[in-house]
Each structure stands twice: as C-alpha cells, then as structure tokens.
C-alpha cells in the first residue's frame, strides 16, 4: 500500500488556488446551523461544466457529477436532478451577471454551482463558483490548475470550500473510515474513503480482526486480533501495513481507544479476573486500571480533550453507558432509558455522545449529552443500527445497519436526515471508525 499524503502535498504546491472573489457574505450570513433539528438539506443545482476547448469533453459531466457526489456525501445538500434543468449547459454562462437566477429558483435551487474547464496537454484548469440563487450573489469561487489525474482532489477541495463558506467549518474530504469486513469466517480490517469509494483491505490474514480505532495522527490503527484462541491488541501502520503486538495480557485484550493528546490508550483487559478498562502507554504497558468492578466494563471512548472516558458497564445487570472523570476517578451513569445501551462515541466537539441502544426489540443509534440530558433516538425503521462513529466535522454519524439485509456501513446527518448507504461490498461490514482529518487539510 502506498501513501497518498505526499502526492497531495505536491499537488498543493503545484495547484494554484486563486480566490477570484472576496466574499464578505461569509462573515455576514451563517447559512445553516446543522445542529438545529429543523435543518433541512439545501437544494443545489450543478449543471454540466462548461468546456473552454475541445479536449476531454467527457469531463463536463464527470466533474459536475463528482462535485455532486462530494456535496451529497456531506449530508448538507440535496443535489437536484440535472435532467430537470432548462437549456444547454454549454450555453449557460458561468459568471454572476450572465446567470438568470429566477430560472434556477423556479427549479427549486437555493444554490447553483457553475464550473468551466480547459485541458491543455496533461494540464487541467478548473474554475468553479458557488452562487446563492436566492440572493443572486456569488458565495465563493476558485480556480485550480494541475494534472488531469488530480481532478478528483480539485473537486474535493472546492467542495470543502463550499462547506466552509456555508457552515464556517471544513468538511470530511480526504478522511477515511476503518471497518470490519466479514466474509464467511474471515473478519478483516478494511478502509474506505469518506464517500464510500476505494474500499481496501488493511489486514488479510483470514482471521478474526475487530474493533479498529484510529490514532489521533491518522497514521495508525489499533485493533483486536485473534491469534489462535486468544485476543491481542495490534497497532498497524496505515501507510505501510506493518503491524506489531501492542498488548497480549492473559485473558481478553479487547476494544481500545487512543487518548487524544496524551500518548496513551484505554483498552479492555480481563487479566484481573473480569473485563475492566485499563490505561496503557503507547508501548502497551499498563499505566493504571481505570475501572474496578465485578461486572463487564468495555468499549472505552475518550472525550476530545482526553479528560473524560465514556464506557459501558453492566454493573446494574445490563449494559449502560457511563462517563468517568479520569483525574478524579468519579464515574456516573448517563443512560437510563432501556436495558441495553452500548458502544459510546464522543462527538469531535465534545457536546454529544452517540451510542447503540435497544428500542422495541431492535438496536438503534441514540445521541445524548455527556451529562445524560437531551437523549434522542437518531435512527428508526427497519433493521438494527449499531456502532456509531462521528465524522471529524461532527456533522455525520456512520454506523452499521442491516436494514437492507446484510450489515453494511451507512451514514446519516446528525439530525437524522440524509441517510445513505456507504458500502456496497459482498459479505457484511461492521464496526466503523471514522479517521481524524488528515494532514492534507
């Protein structure tokens, strides 16, 4: 496996990102607050891009489609079907004063993206602008130049610019999701791009590999692997695929989570007699035991500042989510609804914890505040929905669902909208963990 990061740095140097227009609008208007339950996806029209010469005519539809997919994956936009658009997209202008916003508003578009491109040799010059169709204003525009092979990156960069202009925050472009690919008896760790493209195996040992968890650097993953009958914790380098045993204590070595900013990780070990959560250093040595119970303590998950730990304990007789103040050692239960609440995942901003709970016989994703208030069911309907993980921008939650039969990775906007299936592989996909933003940003 080769590393993708360096090539992108080259792209950054080669690529000339010119801000064509100053956008004072940005400061004046916060377009959306996705934390509002009333938030609805914003309809955007992306007609075919305009060719500026005769080279690579297929890019006209490919590039606009690519941008549509990228924006769709953010969960914030609803991409209008281009078949409903009026007129020849090659005949429509790309600049503010040439666009008839009335027509686009009538089609239901709040926003419009126009792009044009020119190919000379291997060089691609791609210019894109986002317009506010309601206000009839330019929101953001960029010109990118680079090799043709870098066009997907250009599209993702502009999609990121759009998200930043609209929400004030960057998106998830360039991030990846680790998950467990189950095929027959094999459970391998896989990676897939944030938008569901490029699924690749990280382990290929035909064993049982579970619970992948990204290091805050985005360079390595800790996971649980069986060797013979026993579990071990492995750390695997995402770029090279090289791995080493991190922990092989007697008994269970299960689900681990790196502690942000501390060079430590929490893991479930049962060497003390029953499954408890321990703090380990990066070499796997025990720093100290974090939970001491007679029951099951599993699924550690850190607050973004690394000061608090959410975990699952069955001390009441069934699994519930607890939050531990790591320095003081005090712990409190935060889930009280239902008799089976597991798999906590702390949001990147620290304001929410997503978890898996049982409701009416099925498993669903819930969101709750770390103090136990504001409990809310996020998924509903057919099948079981489990193992939530947050996108680095905090807008999306990926999880595994069997709503279409076999388990696959699905993504939803945090307010429950924009549900879409991310993986379309054979077998089953489980236990997703979303990477942090990479150094590309």
């Amino acid at each position, binding site marked *: 496996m080769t590393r993708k990061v360096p090539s992108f740095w080259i792209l950054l140097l080669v690529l000339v990102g010119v801000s064509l227009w100053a956008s004072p609008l940005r400061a004046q208007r916060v377009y959306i607050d996705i934390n509002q339950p009333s938030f609805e996806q914003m309809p955007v029209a992306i007609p075919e891009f305009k060719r500026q010469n005769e080279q690579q005519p297929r890019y006209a539809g490919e590039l606009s489609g690519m941008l549509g997919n990228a924006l769709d994956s953010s969960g914030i936009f609803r991409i209008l079907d281009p078949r409903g658009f009026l007129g020849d997209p090659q005949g429509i202008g790309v600049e503010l004063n040439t666009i008839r916003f009335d027509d686009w508003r009538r089609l239901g578009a709040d926003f419009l993206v126009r792009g044009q491109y020119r190919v000379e040799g291997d060089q691609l010059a791609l210019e894109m602008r986002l317009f506010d169709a309601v206000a009839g204003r330019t929101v953001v525009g960029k010109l990118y130049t680079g090799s043709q092979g870098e066009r997907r990156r250009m599209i993702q960069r502009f999609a990121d610019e759009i998200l930043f202009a609209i929400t004030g925050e960057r998106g998830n472009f360039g991030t990846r999701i680790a998950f*467990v690919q189950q095929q027959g*008896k*094999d*459970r391998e760790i896989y990676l897939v791009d944030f938008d569901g493209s490029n699924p690749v195996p990280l382990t*290929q*040992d*035909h*064993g*049982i590999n*579970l*619970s992948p968890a990204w290091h805050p650097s985005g360079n390595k993953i800790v996971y*649980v*692997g*069986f*060797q*013979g*009958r*026993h*579990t*071990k914790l492995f750390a695997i380098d995402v770029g090279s695929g090289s791995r080493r045993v991190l922990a092989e204590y007697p*008994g*269970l070595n*299960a*689900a681990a989570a790196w502690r942000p900013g501390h060079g430590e990780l929490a893991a*479930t070990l*049962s060497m003390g*007699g*029953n*499954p408890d959560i321990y703090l380990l250093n990066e070499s796997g040595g025990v720093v100290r035991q974090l939970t001491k119970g007679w029951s*099951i*303590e*599993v*699924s550690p998950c850190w607050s973004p500042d690394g000061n608090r730990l959410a975990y*699952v304990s*069955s001390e009441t007789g*069934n*699994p519930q989510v607890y939050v531990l103040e790591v320095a003081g050692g005090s712990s409190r239960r935060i889930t009280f609804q239902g008799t*089976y609440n*597991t*798999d906590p995942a702390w949001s990147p901003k620290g304001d929410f914890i997503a978890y*898996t709970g*049982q409701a009416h016989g099925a*498993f669903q994703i819930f969101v709750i505040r770390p103090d136990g208030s504001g409990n809310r069911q996020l998924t509903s309907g057919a099948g*079981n929905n*489990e*193992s939530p993980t947050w996108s680095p921008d905090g807008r999306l939650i990926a999880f595994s669902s069997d709503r279409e039969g076999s388990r696959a990775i699905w993504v939803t906007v945090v307010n429950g909208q924009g549900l879409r299936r991310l993986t379309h592989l054979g077998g089953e996909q*489980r*236990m997703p963990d979303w990477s942090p933003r990479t150094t590309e940003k």
Partner: protein
Amino acid sequence: MLKQRLAKWLGWGRRSGQTLVCALLVVAMAGFMGCAKKQVPVSGTAAAVPGGGGIQQGAGSGMTEEQLGEQALMDKLGLHSEAERQAFMKQAQTFKNDDIHFDYDSYVLNAEAKGILDQKAVFVRKYPAVQVSIEGHCDERGTSEYNLALGERRAKSAWQYLVNSGIDGKILDAVSYGEERPLASGRDEASFARNRRAHFDLIY
C-alpha cells in the same frame, strides 16, 4: 493441533494392524472431526493450515517419532489398552459435544448447565491430564465488543463452577469468541439460543 494429533493417532492405529479398532476409530473420528471442524478457530496468521491438511500429513510415512509421541500421550492420559482408549474417545466426544446454554445477555448458569458441568467434572477428574479450552459464545444481537466480554464471562462462569467442583484451574482455559463463531446462522430465537453457549474443547 487437535486435528493433527488425532490424525497421528489414527495413523498409529493403522500401523498396528488393528483393522477393527481402526474402523471404529474412523467412525469415532468422523464424529470427532466433524465437531472439531466447526470449532477450530481460524488461525490469526497468514500461515493458516487449510482444514483437513493434517490428516494427509498424518497418514504419510515417517511416523516413528510420532508414534512414540502418541504412546507418550496414551501414557499421559493413563490409557493402557485399546478398550481404555475407546472408552476415552467415547467420553471425550460427549465432553466436546455437550455445550451449555445461556439466557440472553446472561452468564448465569442454569440448572441444566450445572448438570452438564457436573458430567464434565467427572470426565476431567477421570482424565486429569487433559487440557480443557472453554469457549464462550454469544448470539449476534447486541454489540460485538460487549459480546466479546460477555462470551468471556460465560466461559468464566463455567470455569468457576468446575474449579468450585475441585478441578484444577490450571488445566482450564477460558476464552471468548463473542458473536464471531455462531453455530446457527438463522436470525430467529431458536438459532440465537443455540449460539448463546459455552463450548468445551480438549487440547492434548
């Protein structure tokens, strides 16, 4: 490892020219291997041996050292005659076939489970040289991480019961496969109930 051991054993039987015994062993092995095949975990390394490979190796030539090894195993288990060996095989099969079962999200031993464990204690007391692997399993409902821990608690419940019955804890190894090795693939209560189990394996 178990497969190879048994295959060697089978080879030893053939070489001794004890045709009838061999045939009996083959019959026993069929049941034995069928059971073992379901339970033997896939190796965590790339060098995993495909199922059945051990039998071919075992039936090959150059058995002298292995024969000695098997004789040592017989002695270790206290099996001094073919009749004793057969008796052991039969009881070992029962030992491995009888799983104990649990309620949903529970690792409490019910009366039936305790009855089965009492029988297992009798076997282990009779053959104290065996090593026992207790494998805890869960149905697929609930989350994998919790089920991995729950499976271990199930195995530990059985472990504790056997230790309380006077069995040396050192010969018992409690492990968990969580929900990763179901016996039944259905998504109905009958399948779930079969999968919520502790399985017992013998390691020689």
